[in-house]
């Protein structure tokens, strides 16, 4: 976490010194599909305010984004993870200097049907349920009902967090129901007293019941202070210290009233 703090301080410093001026130009953003909705939402608003800057935003995955930053083929790389040591080495070899900016948090909340009496599940219990080892709610202190496991498709960013933080390299059982979006998971769980699912914090509504994990209730606060176990920071990397349009865009993303508001709209946890 030390690295993250350092980054946050640097970002704050940048916010103070960077002048807001409009340059005409083209800005390329690519990388994580998890961060993509943020980049798109913020990008739209940014282009409205800076009509002379042309943004090109695309997905492709965190690895692709970071590779593009190292090769200098993009201005900003979206990443749903931190840069790996291997990638840092490669960057140094190539004489480039990727700089990380934490732009938001991804926080995934386990949910059940409102009638379910289960309030808390440990990470081990969640893993057991999703592996298919725990098949009945009474095994985890709930009603005597079969558990219906609802998961996201394996390529979603939400699934990736779940796999990383809960499954710990194990696989979700193939018999799990798959839904293609956070909304569909919430819908499926809301209408089914047997079901358990997981969704991004931004998609939580009154029709489903949030379950705490390891005794911690998932919220903006517990995500920001690091207490909630199923969350991760999201990044944008730049090639060297950002200048010009790049720094303007990042300032916009990190602005509490501008970009961060849109982060919340996109279903993620804003930095403040």
């Amino acid at each position, binding site marked *: 976490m030390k690295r993250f703090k350092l980054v946050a301080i640097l970002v704050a410093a940048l916010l103070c010194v960077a002048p807001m001026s409009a340059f005409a130009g083209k800005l390329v953003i690519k990388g994580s*599909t998890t961060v993509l909705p943020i980049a798109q939402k913020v990008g739209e608003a940014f282009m409205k305010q800076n009509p002379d800057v042309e943004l090109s935003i695309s*997905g*492709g*995955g965190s690895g*692709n984004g970071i590779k593009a930053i190292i090769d200098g083929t993009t201005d900003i790389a979206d990443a749903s993870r931190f840069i790996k040591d291997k990638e840092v080495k490669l960057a140094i070899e190539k004489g480039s200097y990727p700089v990380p900016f934490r732009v938001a948090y991804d926080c995934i909340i386990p949910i059940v049907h409102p009638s379910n009496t289960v309030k808390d599940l440990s990470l081990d219990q969640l893993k057991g349920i999703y592996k298919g080892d725990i098949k009945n709610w009474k095994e985890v202190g709930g009603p005597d*009902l*079969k558990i*219906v496991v609802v998961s996201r*498709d*394996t*390529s*979603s*960013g939400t*699934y*990736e967090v779940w796999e990383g933080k809960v499954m710990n390299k194990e*696989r979700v*059982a*193939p*018999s*799990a*129901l*798959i*839904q*293609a979006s956070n909304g*569909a998971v919430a*819908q*499926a769980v809301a*209408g*089914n007293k*047997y*079901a358990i699912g997981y969704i991004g914090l931004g998609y939580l509504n009154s029709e489903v019941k949030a379950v705490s994990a390891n005794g911690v209730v998932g919220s903006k606060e517990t995500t920001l202070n690091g207490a909630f176990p199923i969350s991760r920071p999201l990044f944008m990397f730049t090639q060297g210290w950002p200048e010009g349009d790049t720094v303007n865009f990042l300032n916009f993303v990190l602005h509490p009233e501008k970009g961060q508001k849109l982060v919340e709209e996109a279903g993620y946890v804003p930095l403040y």
Partner: protein
Amino acid sequence: MAFLNSRTREKIIKNIFFGIALACIVTLGLITLFLFMEGVPIFDLVSVKDFVFGMYWYPTSDPPDFGIFPLIVGSILVTILSATISIPLGVMSALYLAEIAKPKMREIVKPIVELIASLPSVVIGFFGMVIVAPFLQHVFDIPTGLNMFNAALMLAFMSIPTICSISEDAIYSVPTALREASLGLGATKLETIIRVILPASISGVSTAVILGMSRAIGETMVVLMVAGGAAALPHSLFDPVRPMPASIAAEMAEAPFRGDHYHALFATGVVLFIFTFFFNIIADMIAHKYKQTGDATL
């Protein structure tokens, strides 16, 4: 055009039509080519046999598994199940409309059936998800209403109007002389329908059935929303399945461009294409075999 004689005009028109048809065929050909070009690279990674008969679909795991057998089985089962619901209902309602219903009734019902055929699949999927799924779950006391049976019901609901409307056209166009001859020989209305009308229109009816079924196997939205999406072999009618189109639709958006996962999804599309291709060949063969030429072949 006045300065051109009619023969030149004829030629120009003919060439314009030829050009348009050619453009269509070339476009379709290129799409197919693209499908294969994007799908084939996955076979450097897994063998065709492991891809088609592999039991596990974990395209993003490390190491990944690209086995689409449960997906193929899901697709086939859902299609068969929906066909057993939709073929009798579709063909029988077509017979009713063409042979039994009063002209006034027909005039009201036929447009309604055609209207149902044009319902957007996302609407039907949503209906299946929020109305039918809880209903099934309640009635049969099963863990989830998002399952193979629900998907088959919704697909049948989609293909019945297609089957009904096309079969009705085929049945309606059976020459009146056949009907009159049969009735004139003293056959009852029911006998006429079963022994004369249906065999005479079998080519059109079977085309309708196959079209309805290929709509069901290629349908994406409904199966994505109500089939449940579990990439495992189902053990009962009420187990969730993951038909191929659902898998492609769910994952395509987040599969890295030209990555292994992307190629695997295109390869799944190739398999699906081969399936619908065979459906169409079968439809064509049946249509040719039972082609009705005049009254004599019955």
